[in-house]
């Protein structure tokens, strides 16, 4: 299993890599903005992506749309401070598989990762 963690905060990427490790995913690439994420997806295959919303260069929501337009169907979990209902709906409509609002408890994100991976296997 290979994951991509997209967040402009290196600290948040470390937190999310720790959560992926708890979900037994240890092969993880990192991207610091949406543009880097799109480039990474063009070059590699991922089983799951964790995506922030507010980032420089390209927003996570725009990267999500670009990745879906490429025909990629891997689970993408938005992990963001954007907590308004309209934002959640916008992301789900754009193809987000799930949505986690920061701040989160460690078990919450691990559970969401396992949940979407189990569904994608099914």
């Amino acid at each position: 299993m290979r994951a991509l963690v997209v967040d402009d905060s290196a600290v948040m990427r470390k937190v999310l890599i720790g959560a992926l490790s708890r979900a037994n995913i240890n092969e993880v690439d990192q991207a610091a903005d949406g543009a880097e994420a799109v480039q990474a997806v063009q070059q590699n295959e991922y089983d799951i992506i964790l995506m922030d919303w507010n980032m420089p260069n390209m927003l996570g929501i725009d990267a999500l749309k670009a990745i879906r337009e490429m025909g990629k169907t891997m689970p993408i979990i938005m992990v963001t401070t954007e907590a308004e209902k309209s934002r959640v709906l916008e992301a789900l409509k754009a193809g987000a598989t799930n949505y986690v609002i920061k701040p989160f408890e460690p078990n919450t994100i691990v559970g969401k990762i396992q949940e979407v991976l189990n569904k994608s296997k099914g």
Partner: protein
Amino acid sequence: MKAENINPFIESVYDLFSTMLNAKAERKNVGIAKSANPRDIMALIGISGRVRGMVALAFPVSTALAMVNKLLNTDIKIMDDTVSDAIAEMVNIVAGGAKAKLNTGNEKPLDLSLPTVVRGGDFSVDYPTNSVWIEINFDSDLGPFTLRVTFEPEK
């Protein structure tokens, strides 16, 4: 600035501590900010949309290190880029949570800028015009810190 506009920020601080830091924070005195930076390191983030304002979290070095070490399960002893990055993310989380709480109807969500971190007190913040910084001091399991919030006055 109305109290109901401050409370979402205080609640967001509590949310941050209870979830990602597994610690408790307690609000202390509230007042008007007088100095540029009441602590050693401060992270600021802008809010824009139907209101414009700024949010800041300021920490003594000891609290900043304790928070980062709790978040990452590390033993960092000096201020470095990791600490600055973590402080920036914390103000992002607090501002993000608060702006959602401020959005009670179907208004367009407020937008957040990218956070900025400053160290020391040798700077000034003059934005927005004619507004004041409300300052709320906290004690916590990880040490004291200060939250500051300012909004452009409602017209």
